[in-house]
């Protein structure tokens, strides 16, 4: 199996690279495709293309606020002050590479409504592109996996079908899997990644807030 040595610049089109390989498209056409997508996004906007991507330095705080509002998990839990894991950086980059335009819109809504998470959530649900990206972001934090917004829309649109549609997902990284929050929401731990001690399962867990809200007490 051939492996590209220059993955990084084309990550946004990664699945396209895989598919195109079979259909005989070259990497050059894929890159051209990415450029074209960016161009479409910038049509009618007077700023340079680069401004249409979120900025990991200036927008990170907003991303944290947004993530807290979406997930219901304290910001200091998602992104602790001393953050040796730094999963927020991976997530920010991942979204920025795949859904740059919707991400910018979503961050703008978050910034404009920084004082009210309720208002923030109402606003971001007003359009499909921000609503489904917001859901992808929740699932990212909860499961460490990427469910593309377009696939979530398909799922919702087919919710009354007799047989559920299959939607694919990608585990973002081994690290992301181990940082999944749904397990903590269940007062448990990711399967295969526990920092608890022998016998803990024989007792009730610590209160839910210890897992997802309070930063002083470590959930056991």
């Amino acid at each position, binding site marked *: *199996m051939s*492996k590209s040595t220059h993955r990084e610049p084309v990550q946004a089109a*990664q699945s396209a690279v*895989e598919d195109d390989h079979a259909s005989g498209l070259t990497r050059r056409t894929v890159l051209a495709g990415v450029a074209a997508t960016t161009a479409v996004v910038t049509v009618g906007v007077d700023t340079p293309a680069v401004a249409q991507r979120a900025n990991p330095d200036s927008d990170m705080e907003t991303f944290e606020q947004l993530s807290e*509002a*979406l*997930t*219901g*998990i304290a910001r200091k839990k998602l992104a602790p002050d001393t953050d040796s894991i730094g999963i927020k950086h991976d997530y920010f980059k991942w979204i920025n590479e795949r859904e740059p335009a919707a991400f910018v819109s979503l961050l703008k809504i978050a910034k404009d409504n920084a004082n009210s*998470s309720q208002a923030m*959530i109402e606003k971001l649900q007003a359009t499909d592109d921000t609503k489904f990206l*917001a*859901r992808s972001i*929740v*699932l990212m934090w*909860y*499961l460490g*996996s990427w*469910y593309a917004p377009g696939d*979530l829309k398909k*799922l*919702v649109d087919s*919710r*009354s079908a007799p047989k*559920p549609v*299959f939607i*694919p*997902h*990608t*585990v973002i*990284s*081994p*690290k992301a*899997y*181990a940082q999944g929050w*749904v*397990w903590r*929401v*269940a*007062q*448990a*731990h990711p*399967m*295969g*990644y*526990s*920092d*608890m*001690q*022998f*016998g*803990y*399962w*024989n007792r*009730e*867990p610590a209160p*839910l807030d210890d897992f*997802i809200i309070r930063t002083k007490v470590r959930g056991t």
Partner: protein
Amino acid sequence: MADDEVDVAIVGSGFAGALIANELAKQGKRVVILEAGAGIPTDINEYMNRFYKAAAKVPESPYTPTLFDKDGQFSSEINNPSKVPAGRPTVMTLGPSDWADPRKSYLVQNKTNDGKPATPFASTYDRVAGGTSHWLGTSLRFVPNDFKMKSVYKTLMDWPIGYDDLNTWYGKAEAELGVSADIEDQKYLGIYFPADYPRYPMPRIPETLTDRAVRNALKNLNPADTAFLGMSQPPTEIPVRGVPAARNSQPYKNRRACAGNTNCIPICPIQAKYDPTITLNDALNHKSVTMMRHTVAREIILDGDRRRVTEIKYTRYTTGPRQETVEGSIKAKIFVIAANAIETPRLLLMSRNEGRTPNGVANSSGMVGRHLMDHPYLVAWGSLPNSAKPLYPYRGPLITSGIEDLCDGPFRNERGAFRVDIGNEGWNFVVAGGAVGADPDVTTIDFVNGVNRSGLNRDGNTGAGLFGKGLTGKLNEIITRQFRVGFLVEQSPDPDNRVTLSDHTDGLGLPRPKIAYSLSPYTKRGLVVAKQLQELLFQKMGATDFTTVTPDDPTRFEAQINGRPVPLNYIGAGHIMGTYRMGVTAQDSVVDSFQRSHDHDNLYLVGSGTFTTGATANPTLTIAALALRTADRIAKRV
């Protein structure tokens, strides 16, 4: 090591192969192991990272050959069974459109065999050093009557060996694997322990809150409600016992105590669960033992009068972009085939000795490959109402307790027995029959998107999802009340359930195993009674049943329970048994009680393929006990 220096050649390095190699090594015997797959990795991080990254965390997911591409997605190109040198079945190709497609499935299965409808053999295994390390760790002994079905219940067949013969070997196996259990808790249905065996190597693994809820539900039963079980007396209480497990409850043999990673299958990240690489490493620390990895045994060669094995021919292959192969052979005084109950008969049947053994080696009985068994596994999942106290799943080992007291009784003359596993992993592998993914993912996606694939979001199937505190509150309330149970049903040994050689080949050009499989009426009746017990249990727990059997499930069949049609299905337990069974004579069996071929004096066939009947206990401890007994016999001969 020159070939002529080898005392014993062993094909396969799983439970039986590793244990035998190590016992022989302790006595200074010279041993070579042929392993079809990769060797032991330097540490388990490689396995763990592959597991974490895998989009589908199936039992085979950590191991090699990898199922996944670099993005963690299952790849049918990588897994093309006609190209992989030493392939294996995987859960990934058991779906309705894949299981009978030989382009996808390593095992060649058909929807009919000789005009009779067939259903999937749904168990998988690995081909890698250490064998099927993705086992759960359950280390149950058989109950004495399991060995004497014919004499006690006038059905199936007796083993040529009994509980009394295995009692001390069970103890030795428990010591080697490191089993945690409470000895008093394990004395049921005639199980007893020698006087000089006062306790298991370690105390029992503590129970979970789910275990406790099941126990409480089964404490006070009306005999009229349990008559369907067919016990000699309808029970008024069904005990829940700790499941003996090769899982450390305290530090043992330089391995840590279990930290409750809830991941025994497919892999314990801290090796608190025993796996055969531990014994294999011990064996390989002896200078007299070597292992040849990526070495596939292809033919067992017999001497002129076909009484003894002289050598085993093999193919070694390289992995990587350019696959190269080298042929060779290994000579030894004694040969042990420890390649599991599908690969062992495959090798025996491939060994035609240029036509001198047209039906394969060790097959004068014609029984090689026949009587393939599993424990058809009926799973059911439910949830407690919000008014009930949570069960807190996804905590602790996958299984800590079970129901064992129903696995023997007069009903065995007409239906398969069963034992019950109580799951600690919520709906992880059962939700929606696994068709659309695992939990907690499916349930989470449901509430985030306002859909209802799990069945839990019936009122919220509006497309309007939850965010923030509404989401955490809802998921916490729901997930902490999920549970599942599983019923392992004894399967009758049927001659037509069979491993033969197919016309389809693997990456080395060797014929892949062809499987014919279906459930007998005896086995199906066991599943029906299991379903009845499940319904009683859920009713007593006050649980809502969310179990679904999809219409296109190839294992589906319909049963009548109290006049109602009830769809049932099964999944594989991973317990592959019976294809070279032991017995008294070569008329109806392949090996004797020491697992030696009736036909060939220096050939031993080990593992659960020798099981005469399948019983209900997970087979590993019995595999291990029989292997230690066989090793003792072999050591006296070389």
